[in-house]
């Protein structure tokens, strides 16, 4: 019961049959076009694999609108050194092991690492990419073709099923003999001289054995989704969306001093003695006075020491002043203070056994009355850093022909020598 169109027309088919015939033809053509496009996409997607390319599915929209989820991207291997900003590269995701990221190259840093950005991201990716992580340069974008794979992977099985159904229907429509009518129409006589293909002329009646085109279409209907979901599902490019929220720079400034108890401690001398060249083996530690004298073969020097307190936590010595109360003296002399490097005792020190000092003295001009002070900050800091055996005070120009003598109160006298130590 075949029927060709000319026959139908010559028999004057009713209008509804004409409409159905047109619809049938259009559906057939549409189904073939759809499948043809699908086939074309597949060829563009899969043929590059033959020549060593790789295909990945875009899974997220961080490259929107230039790469869309469901696109298949064909990439070829590339030398990272030759990449140019603006090119889209596939790299091993630096933030998640085992994933592929496809973003656009922003810049290549001097150290060779690559800075990428998703077109839809406001900022470049925070983690630069090593050149060795580059998996290829995106060469070809096949739109839509991987949507089924995307749906399957993202659990949108409803979409996938609907697509399968429609594609299956298209396969059936396209692979059908393409008769415009239905089997209930009158059949075209066999061997009708219209150059029809043999498949058209061997159609069995409805309800007969399974027709070969149905078997073929069933096979195609199974193969196409397999092609789309199978190989494409393997290489997935996660074009990572990223965004940041940044807090402005926090700042921390340490105090100029960590000293918890800054302040000045004034110490009295714990030992002092004059050593006199004229009486070189005599100790005068218990005297109430101390002397410094420049006199030929009768020089006198003063030894004085203090028990330095423990430095308070996180404090340092910021100032130290050594002060003597002047009992009598002459102005115009220059006196110098030097730290003592070895031990001595108040009741044992003599000119003969006095410690040998070295180093630069801290000086002050002598006064006739009042007090005489030396700014010995660096020396006290040195004592805290090293050892403390006190100070030696002497005239900077000893052995003058005429005796020039300064006399201070000793610790046994009215106003002992003092050391004011300031911590800060």
């Amino acid at each position, binding site marked *: 019961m075949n029927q060709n169109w000319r026959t139908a027309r010559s028999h004057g088919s009713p209008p509804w049959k004409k409409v159905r015939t047109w619809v049938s033809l259009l559906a*057939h053509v549409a189904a073939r076009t759809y499948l043809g496009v699908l086939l*074309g996409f597949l060829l563009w997607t899969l043929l590059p694999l033959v020549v060593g390319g790789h295909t990945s599915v875009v899974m997220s929209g961080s490259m929107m609108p230039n790469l869309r989820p469901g696109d298949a991207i064909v990439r070829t291997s590339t030398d990272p050194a030759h990449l140019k900003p603006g090119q889209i590269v596939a790299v091993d995701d630096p933030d998640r092991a085992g994933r592929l990221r496809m973003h656009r190259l922003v810049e290549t840093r001097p150290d060779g690492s690559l800075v990428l950005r998703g077109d839809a991201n406001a900022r470049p990716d925070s983690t630069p990419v090593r050149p060795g992580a580059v998996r290829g340069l995106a060469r070809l974008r*096949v*739109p839509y073709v991987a949507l089924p794979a995307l749906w399957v992977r993202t659990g949108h099985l409803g979409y996938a099923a609907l697509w399968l159904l429609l594609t299956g229907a298209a396969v059936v429509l396209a692979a059908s003999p393409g008769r415009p009518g239905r089997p209930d129409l009158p059949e075209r006589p066999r061997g009708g001289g219209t150059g029809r293909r043999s498949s058209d002329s061997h159609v069995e009646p409805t309800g007969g054995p399974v027709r070969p085109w149905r078997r073929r279409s069933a096979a195609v209907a199974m193969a196409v989704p397999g092609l789309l979901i199978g190989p494409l599902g393997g290489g997935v490019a996660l074009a990572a969306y990223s965004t940041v929220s940044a807090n402005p*720079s*926090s700042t*921390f400034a340490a105090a100029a001093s960590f000293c918890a108890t800054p302040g000045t401690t004034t110490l009295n001398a714990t030992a002092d003695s004059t050593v006199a060249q004229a009486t070189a083996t005599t100790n005068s530690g218990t005297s109430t006075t101390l002397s410094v004298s420049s006199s030929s073969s009768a020089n006198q020097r003063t030894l004085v020491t203090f028990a330095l307190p423990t430095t308070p936590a996180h404090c340092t010595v910021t100032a130290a002043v050594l002060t003597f109360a002047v009992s009598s003296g002459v102005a115009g002399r220059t006196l110098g203070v030097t730290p003592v490097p070895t031990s001595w005792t108040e009741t044992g020190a003599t000119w003969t056994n006095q410690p040998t000092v070295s180093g630069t003295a801290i000086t002050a001009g002598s006064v006739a009355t009042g007090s005489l002070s030396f700014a010995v900050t660096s020396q006290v800091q040195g004592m805290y850093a090293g050892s403390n055996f006190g100070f030696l005070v002497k005239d900077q120009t000893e052995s003058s022909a005429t005796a020039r003598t300064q006399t201070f109160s000793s610790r046994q006298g009215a106003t002992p020598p003092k050391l004011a130590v300031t911590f800060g």
Partner: protein
Amino acid sequence: MLPSSRFAAVAKWSSVPAALVLSSALVWHASYSAFSATADNPASNWAAGTVALSDDDNSTALFSATNLKPSSTGTKCIVVTSTGSLPSTVKLYGTSPATTLGLSSYLDLVVDEGTGGSFAGSGPTSCTGFTSTANAYTGTLAAFGTGKTSFATGVGSWGPAAGTQTHTYRFTYTVNSAIPNSAQGGTAAIGFTWEAQNS
């Protein structure tokens, strides 16, 4: 009228080559537009889902601490909000770390994650109501600045689902009591950045 059989045959058999040409044209167009686009494409098209992150700091730094001494300490909470339409992973890392006199090596930093609290309120009062669920970081500010520099190396375990989600981070710094006096007058600076990537 009905289609002629010749027309029908031409339509049927030209449809496949036409479709192949069409598909090639589509591939060419799609490739051309994607690969010739500039990197400065405006980030406006979020139709396919997005990740979005904000916080309640109103562009105020977490800390602007001065006159720090040994054992000085400070606490501040900040609430980060994710409003993406995709589930994501959020990591915290530092940007532009800087220090003088080695101060940052003696600033001990603890970052806890949890719920409650807000940026408003000075110092510890901003953490009123904060409940910790996890520790994100314990170490020096210096180590944070050099080691936590990107999403890959960032800290934190927050994985917000799609929709509006909030998460509180409590920052506590303490000046290490072993800080040497050589760090007196030293400074340190760091920016704290949260990054969300769709998971």
